């Protein structure tokens, strides 16, 4: 259905994530911005839980090989309509430049993208040995998770990030950002330790190593860790961290306990 002519940085197949295999050492993985993938799926005519293509900064070039509906969501890029159903024909070609705002964009197709289901999910987790990065020349086929295309609203790529715990204030997103974690830069947090007993973590946990620069664990973050815990990002706001580019300001606000 879709041929990848040139992948962007960290192009991979993702869905809403892998649950139930954490005790075997396999984390959630899944889309960095699950809400944007879900919205793109709904616009394309795929089930919310279907897999799509996640792509990071840099240019993505694709060619359509079969007629159908597709949709783009996440970090908006020049080169295609965004957040809406796009009817496509064989030979249609899209050249999507790097996003001016945001980091991660999504390509959804009607019926979802086909990929092997591993432990309940189609999400690639290259570091864990599941799936691989999507390379130039890859042919992506549509799956069976179809639904009626819907009208969806654009999601914001920035905003205040609610955090449970002590960590708050203004930070700058550092250069060390990937699917595992985002390092923040600012006034170092004192008291970070590296010798604690290893205990379970989830995406959104903020680790504070001895250098005092917090690391927000993302979709492909480790399942356990032994650094000081500085706080936990609200699950609805983790996508805003994910969509922050290196150098962007990030305001962490106290989450209200419910």
């Amino acid at each position, binding site marked *: 259905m879709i041929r990848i002519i040139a992948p962007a940085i960290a192009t991979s197949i993702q869905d809403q994530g892998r649950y139930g*295999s954490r005790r075997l050492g396999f984390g959630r993985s899944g889309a960095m911005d699950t809400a944007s993938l879900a919205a793109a799926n709904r616009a394309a005519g795929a089930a919310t839980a279907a897999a799509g293509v996640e792509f990071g900064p840099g240019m993505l070039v694709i060619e359509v090989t079969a007629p159908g509906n597709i949709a783009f969501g996440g970090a908006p890029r020049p080169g295609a309509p965004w957040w809406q159903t796009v009817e496509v024909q064989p030979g249609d070609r899209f050249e999507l430049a790097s996003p001016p705002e945001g980091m991660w964009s999504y390509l959804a197709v009607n019926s979802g993208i086909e990929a092997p289901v591993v432990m309940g999910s189609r999400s690639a987790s290259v570091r864990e040995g599941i799936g691989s990065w999507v390379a130039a020349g890859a042919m992506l086929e549509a799956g069976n998770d179809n639904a009626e295309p819907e009208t969806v609203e654009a999601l914001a790529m920035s905003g205040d990030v609610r955090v449970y715990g002590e960590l708050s204030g203004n930070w700058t997103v550092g250069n060390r950002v990937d699917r595992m974690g985002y390092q923040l830069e600012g006034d170092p947090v004192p008291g970070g330790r590296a010798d604690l007993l290893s205990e379970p973590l989830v995406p959104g946990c903020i680790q504070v190593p001895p250098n005092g620069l917090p690391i927000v664990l993302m979709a492909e973050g480790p399942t356990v860790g032994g650094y000081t815990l500085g706080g936990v990002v609200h*699950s609805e706001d983790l996508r805003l961290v994910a969509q922050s580019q290196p150098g962007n300001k990030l305001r962490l606000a106290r989450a209200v306990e419910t």
Partner: protein
Amino acid sequence: MSTPEFVVESLGDRALLVRFRAEPSTELTALLAGLAAAAAGLKGVLDTCPGTTTVLIETPDRAEVEAAVPGLMAAVKPAEGALHEIRLTYDGDDFRWVCQHLGMDAEDLIALHSAIPYDVRLLGSPGFVYLSDVPPEIAVPRMDEPRRSVAGGSVGIAGRQSGIYGRPRPGGWRIIGRTAEVPALIPGDRVRFSPQ
């Protein structure tokens, strides 16, 4: 083992952490593995994971699941893990360094390391197996500068902790040996190293 005291903490808005007031031990590892398995069957629970002294329960229904934990604890059975034998060749990159650091003959290091079974405490991502403590005589500090990549199948020591690298990854543990095959392990299992 009498059931140790525990508290239930929130880890953000979609997870609970059941934290036990107890030192790591074989009994605690079996209890945590049993609780993780039992909690996975609760309504509304997405995933669970035992830690060294805690159990993670991922759920959007924190209040309901938290209320169910005491009842679950009263009924939980410690996991009865399987014992796996792992054939280990003691020729890791740090084996000679460890012998020199400890002032110990190779035979003694091998004998001490392979003398006792180890508990599989937890599995880290990607594929790292955290084991229970090595005998105090063979504790060694971790490397000042971690290696960029440690081969899968490597067995290492850091302080009194020991572990198996199931997959290649960076790491700073002192590598004493390697195995051709890491069996599929779950927390609560035990392993015994058989020198080759």
